[in-house]
């Protein structure tokens, strides 16, 4: 098998931390290579070195020359990497909204003729890249009109436009539905059949096992497994490699919820301006109700409607038995004690340029204030308390939230709701982009909150997580609840029932 990229003993040091410590990655033509590791294990750093964003402090990168012999190369900037045939799809969207599909695909090397943009060549080139993906898209369409899945595919087309032999995909399915993800991986497989080498970075191990053939596992900047065939490992072994200790499935304390208790939050045939209809749900104190569904099924939208961001047009919402009219988030929080932990912590959950203290206390200033003034000491003791309870690792409460790691950020975004003393907590995708170990801690945390009497509505696309945590699972499809199941924590049986609900009727959901 031909090696198309060999990264040997890469070292990269940042002030105070050794992000890569002699990490090694070898890619062969036609392989789908999984790059796994916990958050902070060095995956992003490695990708940034491969794409010319960072320069390594040690080790070398070797790529095949024209004769096929591997030669050491220096990638000074992203363009060098592209010229060397390494294409990348970053986690963040990197398209220009006002530009056409064709221009976005060819942005790195816009074809010109007589000094002007050569539109014909542009279209031809874009067509070629789209054809590689068997994608039927109008190259002249502005990307602002595309769906999320289409955007992702355009990103891949863009990465391929530079005649890439190596394609790096960083969490490509984070915002895709299962069907869309399947389609994407179909394309990845076809690309590998044509000899492209693909590196897949994903937290979704199910996907990894379904698509990849070889694997490199990073831990603390070192490669603890190097280009091993994935088939040789079980899921558990891989997790062990990533975590570095025998990983055990968390066993959460069993909770019993009295059925006759008045629900903390009850929805009765609710319809909203966001498009929901016939939504009935009840969450009792101490209960975790899962709200499962595909991306776009209307789950986060329901949460936002409950917070007053959309209007409720029919049906009734009751909080602790009394009809509730929630006009805005302030109402939800201060009158009804409903909190919402958002799925987009960076965009919607946190104030990245503010201190952790303010991020935590933002919901309780009303309570902390005396004569409209907030005492710093009260705020600080609040932060200390929650940092302690949630295990947030802080240098100081005055640290900016943006400086924290992903897991700690998620905890801060949860902390403000705990501080606000909520009875009902809607938690939206709590563990997206969070590594296995922190994920387990989060599950314990959520179960612990329920055990303390909080009513929790858990929104998640992660079925194993749902089966682990929820007492009941409501399934949402096309902005309506299509079924509800009591969870017996048997993954196979539960997942089958859930999937049946989801694909009931028309089958595929857009």
């Amino acid at each position, binding site marked *: 098998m031909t090696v198309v990229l060999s990264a040997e003993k890469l070292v990269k040091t*940042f*002030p*105070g*931390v050794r992000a890569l410590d002699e990490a090694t990655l070898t890619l062969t033509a036609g392989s789908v290579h999984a790059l796994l590791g916990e*958050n902070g294990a060095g995956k992003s750093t490695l990708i940034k070195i491969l794409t010319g964003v960072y320069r390594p402090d040690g080790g070398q990168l070797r790529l095949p020359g024209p004769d096929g012999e591997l030669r050491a190369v220096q990638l000074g900037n992203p363009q060098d990497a592209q010229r060397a045939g390494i294409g990348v799809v970053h986690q963040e969207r990197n398209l220009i909204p006002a530009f056409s599909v064709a221009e976005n695909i060819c942005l790195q090397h816009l074809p010109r003729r007589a000094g002007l943009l050569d539109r014909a060549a542009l279209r031809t080139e874009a067509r070629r890249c789209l054809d590689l993906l068997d994608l039927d898209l109008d190259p002249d369409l502005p990307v602002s009109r595309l769906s999320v899945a289409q955007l992702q595919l355009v990103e891949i087309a863009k990465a391929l436009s530079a005649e890439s032999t190596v394609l790096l995909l960083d969490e490509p399915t984070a915002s895709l539905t299962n069907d869309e993800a399947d389609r994407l991986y179909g394309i990845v497989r076809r690309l590998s059949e044509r000899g492209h080498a693909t590196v897949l970075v994903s937290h979704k191990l199910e996907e990894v096992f379904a698509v990849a053939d070889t694997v490199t596992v990073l*831990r*603390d900047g070192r490669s603890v497994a190097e280009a091993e065939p994935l088939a040789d490992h079980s899921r558990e072994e891989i997790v062990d490699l990533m975590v570095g200790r025998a990983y055990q499935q968390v066993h959460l304390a069993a909770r019993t919820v009295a059925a006759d208790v008045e629900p903390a939050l009850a929805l009765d045939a609710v319809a909203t301006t966001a498009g929901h209809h016939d939504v009935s749900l009840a969450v009792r104190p101490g209960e975790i109700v899962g709200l499962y569904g595909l991306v776009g099924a209307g789950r986060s939208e329901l949460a936002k409607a409950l*917070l007053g*961001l959309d209007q409720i047009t029919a049906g009734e919402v009751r909080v602790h038995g009394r009809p509730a009219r929630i006009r*805005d*988030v*302030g109402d*939800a*929080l201060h009158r009804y004690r409903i909190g*919402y932990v*958002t799925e987009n912590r960076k*965009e*919607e*959950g*946190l*104030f*990245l*340029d*503010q201190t952790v203290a*303010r991020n935590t206390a*933002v*919901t309780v*200033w*009303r309570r902390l*204030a005396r004569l409209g*003034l*907030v*005492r*710093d000491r009260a705020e600080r003791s*609040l932060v200390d*308390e929650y940092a*302690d*309870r*949630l*295990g947030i*690792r802080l*240098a*100081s409460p005055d640290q900016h939230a943006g*400086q*924290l*790691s*992903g*897991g*700690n950020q998620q905890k801060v975004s949860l902390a*403000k709701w705990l*501080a*606000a003393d909520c009875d009902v907590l809607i938690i939206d995708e709590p563990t997206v982009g969070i*590594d296995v*170990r922190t994920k387990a*801690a989060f599950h*314990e945390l959520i179960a*612990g*909150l329920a*055990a*303390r009497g909080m009513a929790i509505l858990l929104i998640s696309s992660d079925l194993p997580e749902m089966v682990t945590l929820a007492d009941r699972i409501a399934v949402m499809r096309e902005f309506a609840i299509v079924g509800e199941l009591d969870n017996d924590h048997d993954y196979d049986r539960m997942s089958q029932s859930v999937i049946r609900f989801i694909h009931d009727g028309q089958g595929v959901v857009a």
Partner: protein
Amino acid sequence: MKTETAPEAPAVPPAAEPRPPARALPVWANPRLGLLIVIAVLVVLFSSLTPAFLDPRLTLAPLQADISVYVVVGLAQLAVLSLGHMNMAVGRMAALSTFAMGLAYDRLGVPLLVGLLVGLAVGAGIGALAGLLIAKTGVNSFVVTLALDFGLLGLVTILYTWATGGVSFAVQPSGLSALRFDTFADYCMGEVCGPRIPLVVPIAVAAALGVGLLFRHARLGREILMTGSNTVAAELSGIPTHRRVVAAHALSGLLAALAGFLLAANNGAFSANIGESFLLPSFLAPVLGGTLLAGGAVSVLGTALGATLTQVIYKGLNLLQFSLEELKLYIGLVLLAALSLDRLRAVLAERRAVSSS
């Protein structure tokens, strides 16, 4: 906080993530201190070049009065910079408010304080209107306040023509001339008199302290900052962001009105041209003081120092008798130098913080 209801902290294994350095910057890295040093250097430079710079009656007292005006002007801009917004109509808001004050003194003969309050209310009202337009329509604050500026430019002169037939009210409410001419040195207790500080200075100091308190400790101010930092997150944290936007703009209008009043007191007349020269200084003071245009963070002390710096430069160059073109040239160059120095300091501080961890 009912700690007894808290669940036990779950055992969370330590995360193996790179931890960014804590923010422990050296003292010199503080932008306020840098400004203070620049001001001190300039004061020493100017007073050695022209001793008249230290003349307490003719230079220092008027300088303090000018600084007072421009500190409040800077704060008026800072109030919306906290949101990451701009108020292009800051001068015209001041003009409209001082018109209201003048009208109140002239037609109703109200006492000084009442007229001031009327003007402040008008300023807050017009600011709130701008805020409301921005919050309701989601249109960029620059555009809304620019359009408002155009509109008020016409309105203010139309109003003055209607009310006075000229550009200013001929009225002098009692107490205005004291604000204008007197310093505390004119008020004595027995043999002991106050310092030679104009009477307008405490008004500006009070405004600065009030705004500082608001943004540092008050819930309202903090919520405005959070709205500026991340509007969506603020809204989802239960902050009524629309009302905070309105409040910040109303505060901006209120402070613009106060600045207009201080200027009217310094000039001795309520006239249409008040506020014409507010726009650029209103940005310079906060920006020199380290307030970003991006929102989410403000520095009141920095704004006060920024206003001081610009006025010291202006006063010093004025005393050195530069001709018009040299004056403009040097003001621009000194500003660029001050801004670049501040940048250099920030870069050095960042480097130092990284390497010391």
